[in-house]
């Protein structure tokens, strides 16, 4: 049976269709559901192996990015989601989905306490769409062994900050940093290699199980030959980097 993915959207989610397409390219079957409908029937989570919160501007980023959608999950779905992860399910939050997972406390894990990290305004002060390179770090169900990924970021609030220095060190020590921003050679660097000023160049966080991933960049935007900004100058037979992440998720259940 094909791996089944549920994408949960809210008012202002806007990447659900291309994310569903990326999952289907990776071999999964995918449904899209409004969070209110999931709230009414949380039992339907049992039909899925992977849950995805897509990118967008849920509730307009009003108050702060991901706050209101995160509140939806915390108030109405906390137990269902915990059970989903505990029985081996994967959760992927992309961009606004990462902000939602972080607000809902699903990353970087309960052991770091409530309010361990947040994603806040970029140091540039505004929204930016640009391509970055990611290096995998801590073990995570969505990572593969094929090295760097080239994918775009597109956000205004992607700068990860920790509550204090200890929390940031703990992220590193406890293996929660799933992806970092690096240059094309895998080396750390300042802006724009790290596009938002994130502490320790953090682009993605996982939890203590390695089955939940919150990622600021958009892997679903690099699943087709023509997605890369200089594809006309690149070989045609390469695998688009973003697709690797979705394939890794599907392979997890193979």
């Amino acid at each position: 049976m094909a791996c089944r993915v549920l994408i949960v959207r809210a008012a202002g989610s806007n990447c659900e269709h291309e994310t569903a397409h990326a999952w289907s390219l990776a071999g999964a079957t995918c449904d899209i559901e409004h969070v209110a409908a999931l709230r009414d029937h949380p039992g339907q989570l049992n039909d899925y192996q992977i849950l995805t919160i897509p990118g967008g501007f849920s509730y307009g980023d009003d108050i702060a990015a991901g706050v209101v959608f995160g509140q939806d999950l915390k108030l109405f779905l906390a137990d269902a989601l915990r059970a989903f992860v505990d029985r081996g399910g994967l959760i992927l939050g992309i961009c606004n989905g990462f902000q939602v997972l972080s607000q809902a406390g699903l990353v970087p894990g309960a052991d770091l306490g409530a309010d361990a990290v947040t994603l806040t305004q970029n140091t540039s002060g505004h929204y930016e769409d640009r391509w970055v390179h990611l290096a995998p770090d801590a073990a995570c169900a969505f990572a593969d062994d094929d090295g760097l990924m080239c994918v775009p970021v597109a956000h205004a609030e992607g700068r990860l900050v920790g509550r204090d220095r200890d929390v940031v060190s703990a992220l590193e020590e406890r293996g929660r940093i799933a992806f970092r921003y690096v240059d094309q050679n895998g080396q750390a660097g300042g802006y724009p290699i790290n596009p938002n000023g994130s502490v320790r160049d953090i682009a993605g966080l996982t939890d203590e199980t390695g089955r939940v991933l919150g990622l600021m960049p958009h892997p679903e935007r690099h699943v087709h030959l023509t997605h890369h900004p200089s594809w006309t100058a690149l070989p045609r037979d390469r695998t688009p980097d973003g697709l690797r992440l979705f394939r890794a998720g599907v392979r997890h259940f193979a």
Partner: protein
Amino acid sequence: MRRKGISLGDSMAETWRVRVVPKRGDFDVAGAEKLREVHALGMQHVSMVRSATIYELRGHLDEPVVRRLADDLLCDAVNQRAVVVRVANDVPTDVATVEVFFRPGVMDAVALTAMTSLRRLMASWGGESGAIDAVRTGIRYEIEGVADRAELETLTRGVLVNDCVQQATLSGFGETVVASRWVTAPLSADQDVRRVQIRGRDDAALDAVSRDGHLFLNTEEMRAIQRHYDALGRDPTDIELETLAQTWSEHCVHKTLKADVWYEGDDFGRDGHVELRFDNLLKTTIVHATRTLDCEWCLSVFDDNAGVIAFDDDHGIAFKVETHNRPSAIEPYGGAATGIGGCIRDIMGCGLGAKPVANTDVFCVADPRWSADRLPQGVLHPRRVLNGVVQGVRDYGNRMGIPTVNGAILFEKRYLTNPLVFCGCVGLLPRRFVHKEARAGDCIVVLGGRTGRDGIHGATFSSGGLTDRHAEDFAHAVQIGHPIEQKRVLEAVLRARNEASGCLFNAITDCGAGGLSSAIGEMGEKLGATVHLEKVPLKYEGLRYDEIWISEAQERMVLSVPPENVKRLIEIAAAEETEATVVGTFEATGLLRLMFGGTLVGELDLAFLHEGLPRRKLKATWTKPETIKSEIVPDAVDNKVFLHKLHELNIASKQWVIRQYDHEVQGGSSVKPLVGPGIGPSDAAVVRPLLTSDRGFAVACGLCPQESDRDPYTMAIYAVDEAIRNVVCVGGDLSRTAILDNFSWGDVSREESVGALVRACVGAKDAAIAYGTPFISGKDSLNNQFTLAAEDAERLDLPQHMQIPHTLLISAISVIADVTRCVTMDLKCVGSSLVYVRSDSVDDLDAMMDVHRAVAGWIADGRVLAAHDVSDGGVGVTLAEMCIASNLSINVDVGRVSTETNDGALLFGERPCAYVLEWADGNGPDDDRGLPLGKVVGDATMTINRDGREVVLLAVKDMRTVWSQALERAMGV
């Protein structure tokens, strides 16, 4: 404690304030940005701006509850802290402080979201923790280093507040001036039917009625209305007159372009003097071109919200471009946001609803480095205008999840008082949904946002000129958008359209200019309708019936729904967290009947409403100016001069803007606005709207208003030519390319301006026919002029009536069978050849089309590695951009490019119909229109020679630095 000036319905209710500030050590992004803007204003001595977000909560609440709400929702404990205080106790400190709130009635989207979320949070606690009646949000700035009170006021007006939609409270320097009283008490409105006496009144009295009511109707039009009501034997009600004014506004009906025009002046494209008559200028030029070409792939032209062409066997693509000039001049952020928002709604309301898949934007502004001392009253600084319009398009487009993929920015000083904002949207729809028709018996349903007193008189306001007092007079016409509401509406429309049982509605249109009056009036044009205005959902009580009818509140659509489908539509709307409401019925009476609470408040004959407008008769003249200010090009060129050219704002990279737009959402971007490893400017964007197909479309634009000073006829041709070149460069199919026109013109009460309009229309027609590219949609914005205060004109040495250069934007859309065969402008391969391709003549449209066709053919055959059109900055800049985009370099000789004697004219001279191509094999095409220039080399430098003499030798990285940083520097970021 009750605060004076705030009326409360309940003595127990009070207002709490939560101030959220960055924790010590975290970066105050908003404060830092404002400090940069303050410095750009010239106040370098201001040392610090600290920002805080303010939430005011009114209701039955106590301090622990407010504290908990702040901690659980409003404040992020990781990097923020919250101060909770009763409003009455929030006394100002000695620090200069400015608090900014929206004016009452202006959309405060954050407050709406916050109220819903706070209530939900309190409900989850259970028990009796209180109740929230209302929320508003604001921003507080504490500013250090301000010299005095006067400077604080200047700074506030300059960068912190726009009076048009916001109010500021200033404190510090020993006094506090509270401007922002929060009034939420129910407003009351009388609903008495008012009649406006027009029968038996003379022309002067009729003009006064028009002027006092902001109707913008001229004497002849008022007389036509008078005759109509004479025949009826009664006077019109206020709502009838308003409906006529909205429907007959220049903005809605284009009476100048549809006028009968007598033209006397220079012939078109050849010497001589002609006298010609155009019966309906638009029909005999632009529309005539489309009818002449009669392309079977044009599915819907000029009769819907957007033009539609065939995309594949199952889908059509709709394209619309709008102007939003006046609102953007006085409130750039809200003006541009509602500009793109309205254009997106046009697409959502095209056919039976199209899905928006790409946005475009074009801005014309003055130099952002304009001296602040030389700013006329009533005019916003161009830096603030550009910042605002970019943010407006960004926040609306990004939030709706529509990629903004193509555009242009043009800098010219005559746009100082009248900046131009063009917003475009492309949509995809199944071909079976291209046509619509409201049916008698259908319910009239309003879907989306609620109606408030916002945006009243937008349509009529947009039809006249601006003055130094306009910001005050027409503040109510400007709005702040709510993109998430519109996203909800979009989801609901697409779900209702795609219902398994069939589309739930027979027709749909958007509420734009003129609000419900235009939407229902147009939709029911061939039928008739009864509308019950009291059923329209309101944001707040107290709107008069005529305000409900003409409000231009955003994010609303009107649908014609068979009664049996209404229930399901309402369910879908609710599931998407929006609202659908039946407000009336379409019926075959030929009458528009407006009711309020059972009283007939207006009854209009639809035939008169739509056919009764007297067609204007205009005179037009045009003679070629004797002296033409030619563009300033340097005589001699060396490395320094070349770098200086790359630093000009019209040449420099627009990356700073493009990156603020999400140009990749929806996953269809195939040729991005920024391409190549070195990040160069793409000529056009290519989008693949169906993720499972490699079919796509290219979208591009062309405009060259500088040419309109010489001749608007050639200006129009050059604009079409540029748009066509741009789609050709990426691999567009010329046999499947359609174009759109957007005229932004000066004062059309002058015969010369109308003459210029005639010439541009004829030029557009001639080019469209010669190129085989039909017009499918268009829009015009006239009377873009500004009357300066008398003392300003003298002090600043500016003409009292500022006029923009006549500006015609041409947008092109072209179907691409296979996006994986597209070509980009970055150089690909060391050792390949560069070819300059051009027409010999810039007057012979057929010869020019042959060149476009030849280039398109070579690209389609895979013989071209890179293609870039020659436009702003001539062949020199084209070559430099190709190097910058690729990190590769070139060694070329441009001696044969033209016969210009001086190097500046040779390298930077602009002309239509020219390309630079990187050729895959050999030296170039066997075609005398192709001129070999030289080779792509690998030494990281650009060498340009002229007849063997070296003119420029520059490192590519030096060129990139200058070219990519100019705009950011000019913007002070």
